């Protein structure tokens, strides 16, 4: 199928690239990469569990941006307190300014098509920063997103602005015509001393399969504070490969929380690139899976400069025949002395057919660093269960109390209150938790 996929996407690429824009060079280069690399095969160590090449079937089709979806269709998926947030909409991977609503002042925040940014005031920034993540993901699927990046979105949080209301991004895949392929692309510039909170969610409309292949790049400048929340709560037919690439180009604070509650095949890459001394980053993840969902979280913390701190905690609860994968890489480069990097992955298996795979990978080239990692895979703690039951709490409720407690540890890191409550509500319903 790999060859078929290459010819399908090549044809689509030539069809769409009639007008040469500012991103033409970038896309051409990416398309050439894609042709060269092809799709990641299962033998590729990075893609051992997420067998993504299986998804490139003959019936997979790039979706159009004109699907007739209206604001009313989007209404039921809006995140809490959306009326005061900026809401940015992708339809089948294509940024749709008409359906979007920028509710921040232009001196605080701008959100425009990536192509416009590349042609206008932000040309230099886009040229210098778009595609930085490619070095970390030398694979065809990453290149394939880049080849179609001109449909993307550009966001800038302006210098010194503390932006209180969040930016919500909704990625809609309209699968009514068939098995739809969508490739959203976003570049975010958080300027010096700006503060920004972004929440991204994914929605598949229609009863067919969907496949989203996303690349989301954030560049954070000195003294910026960035909170990034990725909420995955799609149907059992939705597939996802997404790379979130966060660069700290100045000393700043970046937080990422990734919540995966459903989907078919879900692969999340999250990178924190610590390019400035004394940077601080936090990465939290929760995957609560059942059915046949596979969620594969690959994270990278790349300590380029000294004195950086990073903390990472991923937790998984797997029921049914679901499968959770965690791979956490920490690189400490030669010059990155005094790095503090912590990583932990904890898994609870609720059924005999569920599975968890966890692999920490530390590559340390500096000699004066503190790095730790740990992982656990187990069942619910029998002693804790007995303790709760011995107080008259039923086994079912005791389990749900313990699972909710396990999950809440991650949810507490969603600082955006209404969003945290929204996610907590979904999780509580799933766990039958009502105390």
């Amino acid at each position, binding site marked *: 199928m790999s060859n078929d996929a290459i010819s399908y996407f090549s044809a689509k690429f030539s069809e769409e690239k009639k007008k040469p824009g500012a991103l033409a060079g970038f896309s051409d280069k990416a398309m050439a990469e894609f042709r060269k690399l092809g799709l990641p095969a299962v033998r590729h160590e990075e893609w051992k569990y997420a067998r993504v090449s299986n998804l490139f079937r003959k019936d997979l089709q790039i979706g159009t941006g004109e699907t007739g979806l209206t604001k009313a269709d989007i209404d039921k998926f809006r995140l809490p307190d959306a009326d005061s947030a900026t809401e940015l909409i992708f339809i089948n991977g294509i940024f749709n300014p008409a359906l979007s609503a920028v509710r921040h002042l232009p001196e605080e925040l701008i959100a425009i098509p990536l192509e416009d940014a590349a042609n206008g005031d932000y040309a230099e920034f886009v040229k210098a920063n778009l595609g930085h993540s490619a070095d970390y993901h030398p694979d065809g699927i990453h290149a394939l997103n880049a080849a179609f990046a001109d449909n993307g979105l550009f966001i800038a949080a302006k210098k010194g602005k503390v932006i209180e209301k969040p930016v919500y991004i909704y990625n809609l895949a309209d699968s009514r015509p068939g098995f739809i392929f969508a490739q959203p692309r976003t570049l975010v510039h958080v300027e010096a001393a700006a503060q920004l909170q972004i929440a991204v969610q994914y929605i598949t409309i229609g009863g067919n399969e969907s496949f989203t292949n996303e690349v989301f790049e954030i560049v954070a400048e000195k003294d910026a504070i960035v909170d990034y929340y990725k909420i995955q709560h799609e149907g059992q037919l939705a597939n996802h490969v997404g790379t979130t690439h966060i660069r700290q180009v100045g000393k700043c604070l970046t937080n990422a929380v990734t919540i995966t509650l459903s989907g078919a095949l879900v692969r999340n890459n999250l990178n924190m690139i610590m390019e400035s001394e004394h940077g601080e980053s936090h990465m939290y993840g929760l995957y609560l899976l059942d059915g046949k969902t596979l969620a594969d979280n690959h994270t990278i913390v790349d300590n380029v400069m000294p004195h950086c701190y990073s903390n990472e905690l991923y937790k998984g609860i797997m029921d049914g025949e679901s499968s959770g994968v965690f791979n956490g890489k920490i690189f400490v480069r030669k010059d990155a002395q005094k790095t503090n990097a912590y990583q932990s992955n904890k898994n609870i298996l609720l059924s005999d057919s569920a599975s968890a795979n966890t692999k920490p990978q530390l590559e340390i080239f500096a000699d004066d660093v503190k790095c730790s990692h740990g992982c656990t895979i187990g069942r619910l703690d029998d002693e804790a269960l007995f303790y*709760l*039951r011995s*107080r*008259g709490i039923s086994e079912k409720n005791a389990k749900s109390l313990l699972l909710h*407690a396990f999950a809440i540890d991650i949810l507490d890191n969603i600082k955006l209150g209404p969003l945290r409550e929204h996610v907590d509500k979904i999780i509580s319903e799933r766990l039958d938790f009502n105390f």
Partner: protein
Amino acid sequence: MLHIKNLHANIEEKEILRGINLDIKAGEVHAIMGPNGSGKSTLASVLAGRSNFEVTQGSVEFMGKDLLDMSPEERAREGMFLAFQYPVEIPGVSTTNFIKTAVNEARKHRGLDPLDAVAFLKLMKERMKLVEIDQSLLSRSLNEGFSGGEKKRNEIFQMAMLEPKLAILDETDSGLDIDALRIVANGVNKSRTKDNAFLLVTHYQRLLDYIVPDFVHVLYNGRIVKSGTRELALELEERGYDFIKNEVELAEQD
């Protein structure tokens, strides 16, 4: 209230309880003493329904019902309470929410409506005084980061909230300094009524200076080898467990 007849129990094929007989009536306080490894904590665990023990023989009747037939939560709702020797730390579960859930499960079992927030808080405030426990402790995660003494006080606080018919205190005195011991004992003494009963499992007689038992039983090698009153505990304190061991061995030689 509680009738234990010829109770035998194993853990991983090894027989720990080898024929326990014990009757506890409402209003009584019993103390079970014995050297390490005699089966004291096993007895407490088997009564509360811990699953890693297997009862191989005998019967236990609690409030006229077959105790061994009940799940741990049913035992609790029927009025049994175990104060753990090592209370479990459960991060993410707030102590207050947990106790509220437990209290309301017990009420539901008795056909009562759940307590509303105001009534619950009132009850809580009142019972907090019993064990001199601080509000700030209760708003934290269950036992997480509690000191040894705080954990034990939290156990007695839960007991006071749940108002059990039979409370089993498994080495509640271990690891307590004298002030904490006094507070815990005071909580127990104030909870005593003519309708409830206590089973104190302890290695030392120290606790019994503060909670005066009606009966003292010595457990050795999985059997109650001697029963008496408070004087028996004092005798044990003075002479150590060796005299019991010697008596048992002499008896077995006969």
